[in-house]
């Protein structure tokens, strides 16, 4: 029996506004505990929230970028529950009247484009952080994060596999980053993801019992948690056992999901409209003003890169995944108009370094000028592709000019035919057995000679020229 997974994601994106959503405290990350707090975000008696309009700007941006419907009247609601990191005893969120509903995010599945529909986008405030003492049964609360603005983005259960889930998250992150409203860092918690997942026999239209998954702090965790959950639910189904509606946590160490609470223990949040905040009115002018500020978005950029630079869909998708990378690509192509060569190098050498360091291109020493200079040296046969890779990592590390590195390290390639012919002739003379083999039809032996030339020249010989010369020598006589 074949099964399919039905997955919906709930993403919380922490916004990069300078101040909190309902007070003027800073949102900066990493300050000493309880230094970015005031009586409002600490819920002192008598204090009142006042909405930071920037948060609404950001919500409108995302709504426009995902083709969601922006509502002219949105209402903040209180989500009531007790927890020490929630100073008011309720979180100000949105419930039945969120700022936006509908819309979609486009992902690549194989060679197909698929739309994952959105249920809603709403604004809310973040909670604080609990810090547990390792030695005593004592916990501390840091309220710096309390009131940092969040957008919650809820998808329809349109996702059918862990890969699609990751593709959706990556695309959503790209959009958030293009809009410059969220830094999208999952490890640091500025982008958080919960999943609802159920399985059903392939072809069935009914929905199975859904399980909520939490505590997935990277794309890899999301992938692993969903894979595990599909296996777990499938096994239960095949054993004729019941799948229980519950919330499960992903255990990173063991790679499994563990039950956290059942349906009966589910919170009753007693949502009701927050009487401290008047209904938010968003008029057409506001939306239009925001629309004017939107950058070219990932999907549009991708189309353009395919058309304008002739990039394959796969390359384009990767390069547009980051606005900075896409800008880097375009700047390079302007100087060195061979898009495919640029994209090949970006997708291999450049991304390898970026991923290794977890950096964005603009955070490194690599500039389009340096990078294209390197590509030009390779193009002009001044260096070999092996040397080019060496030069690249040096440029990436130091920001030195490629030409300088080539000179300093003596990486300039030997292409002079006279010099190389002499070496080749000498080697052919020294290895009559191999020459014999070649002439009896074992053409592969040429590789042996190339290797010898390389050894003789300490790798500086231009392999193309060497090949040509050796072929001439071995074929003649």
């Amino acid at each position, binding site marked *: 029996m074949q099964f399919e997974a039905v997955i919906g994601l709930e993403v919380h994106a922490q916004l990069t506004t300078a101040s909190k959503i309902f007070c003027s405290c800073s949102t900066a990350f990493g300050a000493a505990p309880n230094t970015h707090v005031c009586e409002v975000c600490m819920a002192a008696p*008598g204090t009142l929230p006042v909405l930071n309009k920037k948060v609404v700007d950001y919500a409108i941006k995302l709504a426009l970028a995902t083709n969601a419907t922006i509502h002219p009247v949105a209402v903040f609601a209180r989500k009531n529950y007790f927890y020490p990191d929630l100073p008011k005893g309720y979180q100000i969120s949105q419930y039945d009247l969120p700022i936006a509903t509908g819309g979609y995010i486009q992902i690549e599945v194989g060679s197909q484009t698929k739309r994952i529909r959105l249920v809603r986008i709403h604004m809310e405030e973040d909670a604080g952080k609990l810090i547990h003492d390792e030695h005593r049964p004592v916990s501390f609360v840091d309220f710096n994060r309390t009131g940092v603005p969040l957008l919650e983005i809820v998808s329809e259960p349109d996702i059918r596999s862990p890969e699609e889930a990751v593709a959706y998250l990556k695309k959503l992150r790209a959009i958030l980053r293009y809009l410059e409203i969220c830094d999208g860092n999952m490890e640091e918690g500025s982008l958080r993801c919960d999943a609802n997942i159920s399985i059903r026999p392939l072809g069935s239209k009914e929905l199975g019992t859904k399980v909520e998954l939490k505590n997935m702090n990277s794309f890899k965790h999301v992938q692993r948690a969903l894979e595990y959950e599909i296996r777990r639910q499938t096994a239960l189904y095949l054993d004729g056992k019941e799948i229980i509606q519950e919330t499960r946590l992903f255990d990173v160490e063991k790679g499994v999901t563990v039950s956290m609470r059942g349906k009966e223990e589910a919170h009753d949040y007693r949502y009701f409209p927050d009487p401290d905040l008047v209904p938010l009115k968003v008029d057409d002018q506001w939306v239009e003003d925001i629309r004017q500020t939107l950058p070219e978005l990932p999907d549009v950029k991708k189309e353009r890169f395919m058309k304008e630079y002739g990039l394959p869909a796969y390359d384009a998708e990767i390069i547009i995944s980051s606005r900075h990378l896409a800008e880097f690509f375009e700047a390079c192509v302007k100087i060195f108009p061979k898009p495919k060569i640029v994209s090949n190098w970006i997708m291999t050498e450049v991304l390898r370094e970026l991923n290794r360091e977890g950096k964005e291109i603009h955070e490194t020493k690599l500039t389009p000028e340096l990078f294209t200079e390197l590509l030009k040296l390779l193009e002009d046969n001044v260096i070999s592709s092996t040397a080019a890779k060496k030069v690249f990592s040096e440029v990436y590390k130091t920001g030195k000019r490629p030409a300088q590195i080539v000179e300093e390290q003596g990486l300039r390639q030997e292409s002079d035919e006279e010099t190389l012919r002499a070496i080749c002739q000498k080697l052919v003379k020294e290895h009559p057995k191999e020459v014999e083999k070649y002439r009896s039809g074992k053409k592969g032996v040429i590789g042996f000679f190339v290797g010898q030339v390389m050894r003789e020249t300490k790798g500086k010989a231009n392999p193309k020229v060497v090949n040509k010369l050796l072929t001439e020598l071995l074929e003649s006589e």
Partner: protein
Amino acid sequence: MSCFWDSLLSLRERLAKKELSSQELVKHFFERIKEVEPKVRAYITLTEEGALAQAKEADKALAAGENKPLLGIPLAIKDNICIRGVRTTCASRMLENFVPTYNATVIERLRDAGAIFLGKTNLDEFAMGSSTENSAFFPTHNPWDLERVPGGSSGGSAAAVAAGLCAGALGSDTGGSIRQPASFCGVVGLKPTYGRVSRYGLVAFASSLDQIGPLTRTVADTALLLQVIAGPDNRDSTCVDQEVPDYLAALDMDLKGCKVGVPKEYFGQGLSQEVAQAIEASLEVMRDLGLEVKEVSLPHSPYAIAAYYIIAPAEASSNLARYDGVKYGFRAEGKDLLDMYKKTRSQGFGPEVKRRIMIGTYALSAGYYDAYYKKASQVRTLITKDFAEAFKEVDFVLGPVAPSPAFKIGERTADPLEMYLSDIYTISVNLAGIVGLSLPCAFSEKGLPIGLQIMGPHFSEERVLALGHQFERALGLFKQHPGL
């Protein structure tokens, strides 16, 4: 040189004429407080030192010829309004030692106007009650009869004004908490339009109903205080961005020919004979003033109490969730987090507060929300529409403030429902968000004050105060004081 019964306006004049200094004035009030306060118990906290320092400053400013609306005038503040550095208890164990680091907006404005604070007045815990008996500390006594309640929840402020323990006071009104004690204590009390006065720094009971307002000896004084505290505030989103008119200048406006509506629903069962007669007599005075009196209908008013006792507790259950023992206020030790929460809230809150938190929590619960909270909100809309309809026909609506004069301490504590009925004539005004003014209109046979309520549409404070002022001058009751 008595000054305890002077109006704010008269004190202002005397201070300006250098008949007395602000420091003398403050000292006189503290002498009076030493003598009378043990019988009345209007104050939770007295701030003598701070008041004298403020008075000294005021005298300097007066000497320099500065002209501020309340320069050097001593006021009392209900103890659910935050004053920086002064304990703000809400008459609750939960906040017994809470000292705010910020001023309420109204406090900032009063300070800017030169006012001086004598202390913080008693109230029903978190403003929940109608007799000030729900104070966690002690009940306040009615200055007209010490065995009776002063009303509530702003009972301390009303009693302080009535007993000459301050020149004027601020209270807060969620379902009648300014007007009913004003009526019981024979003083003037105003519940302004919702959104007229900033709520920032007022410890929330029910956010969509709460409003700060003055309690004074005359309507003109109420106009003066409102003038100072009203107006938009960027710290309170529900505070309306609307200019504040000159209330004092409007007091003598010509109201002849204006129409006064009397809702027929207000004169049924439960209204005491004495109060009914007092209102009847007041209507005569209105006619004498040249106003036309006619009957109106507020058909949904019988449902006001029911709707109020869903909406207010629902909001309260959420507003009071912050008192969890984690950040400030009372904390009981517990064996774990849940235990700490339970013990803190069980021991920190009094019975009436707990009752309302439970009612409110229930009303908002999944499966009950539609039947209770949503329904109550719909009733609220209908009540607002009732008033809108009535105000198409009349300029004011008149009625009683409370069904009876002040009752005895302990008389109604056993039955919360009976206590809730004390607010039957005041609650609708909060639900609709309109203006409600309470002012003395008669004395009962036993010599207890009876209040009249003048209601007006949203932002009609100018006219409501003008009518109150003209009525008050016609009657002259403000010249009577309790024999303390």
